[in-house]
């Protein structure tokens, strides 16, 4: 019943196939969604359009409704390699600014989430009081209070990376909290009874039973949390004066209707997130293998 883990090719082939399918659909969608504009323009100019013209024009618009994949790729490529990485037009530069705040926020959020979860599992007063309010905290629309957070912190003299990181932490602590509470509570009754029979102390129970038991949950949560931290940072970048970072890129692209720039920034952000998630996945498989949990 043991399933051989797929080879590298076995892992990449499916992804490529699905990707190919997506790109094809994307091209079709681009033609379809951009066509009305191209037709309107032709009508305004009293020109006649052949199908060939239509397709060519829909895929090369400067302000497409949906940019074609190659346009986004070109935008990305230009943003990443076309500039010195210290240039303000470089996606690497903006990516780095976003990344640093994301990591800081992720660290704060994860620490807060784990600490709260430990508190909830070990302290009944916390168990009964914190969780409903943690849920409530997540329903507060951060984009709405982000500007206030930034303003309040700025008036307290805190600027730069920290306000963004705090917004990122706000979003990322919740998945960690939920996952860790669940994880710390999974040990089955017999395993807990065993610990009980050895009169293990609370901290021993934690380190030897609850924590190892919760690791799979923790890693799953961390993956969600790091993506959330990235979103938080980007949200925090909007009102932070929209000066730098992928969020500012998105916004200014949006502001000037530069669809290609939006999509390039969007993809840069997603690539960053995917890379971070993969990094955590890698740490996870390493840890679980060392613990003998990966079968």
């Amino acid at each position, binding site marked *: 019943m043991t399933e051989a883990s797929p080879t590298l090719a076995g892992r990449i082939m499916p992804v490529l196939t699905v990707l190919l399918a997506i790109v094809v659909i994307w091209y079709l969608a681009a033609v379809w969604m951009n066509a009305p504009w191209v037709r309107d323009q032709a009508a305004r100019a009293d020109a006649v359009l052949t199908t060939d013209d239509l397709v060519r024009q829909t895929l090369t618009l400067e302000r497409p409704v949906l940019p074609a994949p190659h346009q986004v790729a070109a935008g990305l490529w230009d943003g990443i390699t076309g500039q010195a990485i210290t240039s303000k037009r470089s996606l690497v530069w903006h990516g780095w600014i976003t990344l640093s705040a994301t990591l800081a926020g992720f660290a704060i959020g994860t620490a807060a989430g784990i600490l709260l979860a430990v508190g909830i599992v070990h302290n*009944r007063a916390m168990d*009964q009081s914190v969780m409903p309010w943690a849920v409530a905290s997540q329903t507060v629309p951060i984009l709405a209070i982000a500007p206030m957070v930034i303003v309040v912190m700025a008036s307290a003299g805190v600027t730069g990376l920290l306000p963004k990181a705090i917004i990122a932490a706000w979003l990322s602590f919740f998945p960690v909290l939920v996952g860790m509470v669940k994880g710390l509570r999974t040990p089955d009754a017999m395993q807990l009874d065993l610990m009980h029979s050895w009169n293990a102390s609370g901290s021993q129970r934690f380190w030897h039973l609850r924590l190892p038991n919760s690791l799979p949950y923790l890693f799953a949560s961390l993956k969600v949390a790091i*993506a959330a931290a990235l979103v938080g940072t980007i949200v925090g970048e909007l009102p932070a004066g929209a000066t730098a970072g992928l969020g500012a890129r998105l916004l200014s692209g949006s502001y000037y209707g530069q669809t290609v720039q939006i999509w390039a920034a969007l993809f840069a*952000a997603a690539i960053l997130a995917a890379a971070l*998630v993969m990094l955590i996945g890698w740490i996870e498989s390493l840890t679980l293998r060392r613990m003998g949990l990966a079968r």
Partner: protein
Amino acid sequence: MSALPIIAVWLGAWGLNAWLSRFDTRATRLAVALIFGATILILWEMIVRIHAVPPVILPAPSRIGASVAQNTAILWTDFVQTILKGALTGWLIGALAAIATAIAIDRSPFLQRGLLPIGNFVAALPIVGIAPILVMWFGFDWQSKAAVVVVMVFFPILVNMVAGLAATDPMQRDLMATWAAPYRASLWKLRLPAAMPFLFNGLKITTTLALIGAIVAEFFGSPTRGMGFRISTAVGRLDLPLVWAEILVAAIAGSLFYGIVALIEKKVTFWHPSQRRQRG
């Protein structure tokens, strides 16, 4: 020392809660949560008053309460527009689509291996980037908000559901094999029930995501109602009590939403170890 009464209230409330929590009945549990919340509100009010925080930065809870009472009609319209039309529809469509997709790709490891990494990638697309695009595609009204919510909740639920469908223990699967259970039977009778704890994990996390998505999407274009619209407009008018009133409604609605899903989870997954006190 102006901080002294604040600390005193905090400690007092904490002590009361620590004492109450020892009884652990339904009533005391509710009381503990309420006292915790009340403490935060009281501390908030005290801080705002003692330190004379300008109301355009942080209004006191009492003023927020007054604003709620004054603006019930507006709050209700916004609630219907954003939560019922935007968030709830989007969440339902997204969840159903994700569950259906998970089941559809469940049989094909090829599709799973191809789709999930890309799914993770799409899930990581920041909402602030997607929202303007979807508003451009689906128009200004709640449909575009629902679309944003669909995109936001789809992959978390999909990923959880796929993990859940795979989360049966070997002996349970072997049993199905010994009965030569056809695919549909093992899906309905084994994998779907076993996936429920995971599915609900996804559903719970996405309740809050749905709210955030619907509200944030309104920042990128909306009709002249909705919670996101009201918040951004009210900030511009420095009507901070109204902003917080909307936030309050969002928080209550979100907690209720989460609570209802958690309640259904309890009913559906009563058998799961995390839902019962079991024995060795």
